[in-house]
């Protein structure tokens, strides 16, 4: 079987398209690369969606912790404490058991122009349940980074904005938020990389892989167990993850350039995979 045929058969296997049965005997290198790559789409999906929503929620959390009254501040602090203080591994297990307990029922949300139907059993599926956990987790870690940055926004900048007569909303949009982002950005890029790496945990915790549709590590593990040879599939997924991390660094570098356009000597986002110590 040629490699392009393998790509056709297994390229989207992680989403249930193509060949149903996974290769069992005579596993070729090409099959390993294609199937693990197919699973990596899940990792990218989880990382991208969790980061986008996590970014928004983390910003809100950071403002609640710094600027809001105790009614918002205390829950925000507690949220960050719980999610940063416990292992993501246990959070996955706990959330899965929690979602399993929720009674099965369907919802219909009438949006006026269309009707969305949702079902609580989706929560026990990785695509939604694990995503929620990842989203909450990255929100907590990012909120911690943003809180630090928010506290470091120079007072003079805010006072200058006041002196210009900016109202709260304009001040936030033009002064506080961009400065906070600029200060937090290099730590935040580490958080993004770390979150991308965390996506590999999903199918090894509570969430089962439905019809063998798993992420990259799920297939890497499958091959290692079936060939009794860990020296091929794990290096393949390692390369995928390093490439993904490089892409993230590249993207965050571009944004950093834009954020620091007005700064004379902008801090360089160097590719130091080492600084992933933010967690």
């Amino acid at each position, binding site marked *: 079987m040629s490699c392009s045929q393998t790509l056709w058969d297994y390229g989207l296997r992680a989403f249930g398209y193509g060949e149903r049965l996974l290769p069992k005997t005579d596993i070729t290198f090409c099959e390993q690369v294609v199937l693990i790559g197919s699973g990596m789409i899940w990792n990218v999906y989880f990382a991208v969606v969790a980061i986008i929503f996590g970014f928004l929620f983390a910003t809100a959390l950071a403002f609640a912790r710094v600027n809001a009254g105790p009614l918002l501040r205390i829950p925000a602090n507690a949220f960050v404490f719980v999610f940063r203080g*416990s292992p993501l591994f246990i959070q996955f297990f706990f959330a899965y058991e929690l979602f399993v307990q929720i009674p099965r029922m369907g919802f219909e949300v009438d949006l006026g122009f269309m009707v969305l139907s949702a079902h609580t059993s989706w929560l026990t599926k990785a695509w939604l349940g694990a995503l929620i956990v990842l989203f909450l987790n990255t929100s907590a870690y990012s909120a911690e980074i943003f809180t630090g940055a928010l506290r470091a926004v120079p007072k003079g900048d805010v006072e200058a904005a006041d002196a210009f007569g900016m109202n709260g909303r304009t001040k936030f949009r033009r002064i506080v938020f961009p400065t906070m982002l600029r200060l937090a950005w290099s730590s935040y890029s580490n958080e993004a990389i770390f979150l991308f790496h965390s996506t590999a945990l999903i199918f*090894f915790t509570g969430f089962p892989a439905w019809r063998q549709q798993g992420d990259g590590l799920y297939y890497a593990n499958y091959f290692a167990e079936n060939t*009794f040879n860990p020296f091929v599939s794990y290096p393949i997924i390692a390369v995928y*993850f390093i490439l993904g991390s490089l892409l993230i660094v590249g993207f965050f570098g571009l944004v950093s350039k834009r954020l620091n356009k007005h700064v004379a000597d902008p801090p360089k986002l160097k590719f130091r995979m080492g600084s992933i110590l933010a967690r």
Partner: protein
Amino acid sequence: MFEICAEPRSLEGLTWLSCYLTTPKHAAMYYSILTVLGLLLAVVPPILFLGFAGALARRSKIAPVRWLGVGYTSIVRGVPDIVFFLFFPIALDQAVEYIRHKIKCADVLEPVYQGNDFVVCQAAKMPLGIADQFYHEAWGFSLAVITFAIVFGAFTANTLHGALNAVPKGQLETARAFGMSERQTFWRVHMPQMWVYALPGLSNLWMILIKATPLLFLLGVKDIVYWAKELGGMKTQVYTYAHPDWRIWYFGALLVFYLFLTWVSQRAFDRIFARASRGLSVAS
């Protein structure tokens, strides 16, 4: 355990619960907390050793040693740790068995990798098939310690590398001006000051290490995650203590346990920081 627990089916309420929580299986779960704490303590020396080796290798004047140091730290950190937790135990296991096979069964000519199988002779099995259950668990635990050490050694190497660079150059120049040799400068001035800069990074690593201990479960060690799954699952009337699916409570308890562990660590580190930075002008 207690006399009143002789007939669990007739018990109710708190008595039932207290009997339930003191069954031998629960005792095994409490004992596995010690496994987690034991692992945390057991991995620290090898982690620090590998961390130092890595940091010093990265500063080495010999290029290949430096490359080795840089390669080790960046590869381990560029890949999710869970990949290593799946890879190293089986890789180390195979490496050990392969070497033992070559030594002990030199007369066996068949290749070790036969298609999709990894075949070594009986004498090369590690631990031996006839060995006591204890040795199997000890071997699993040792593999876990080595894996943790390799992964976290790389993180530590990076922290120590940064800390060594953070010591003000003036301090080292002064030491040299006093006529200290390279070695003396390193041990008497560079190292003692390095710790202050390394502490924040090391404390952060300790937190990550705590939160990585549930991965023991993946390594086949019977840790608290294993027992939570085992004990929490639904128990039908066949069992002495029947109960519905209680895993959510068990994992909730684990969550609280880890929160407590990180909280205590954080408080301890706050104290150490305050102590270590006395007399030094270190920001925050």
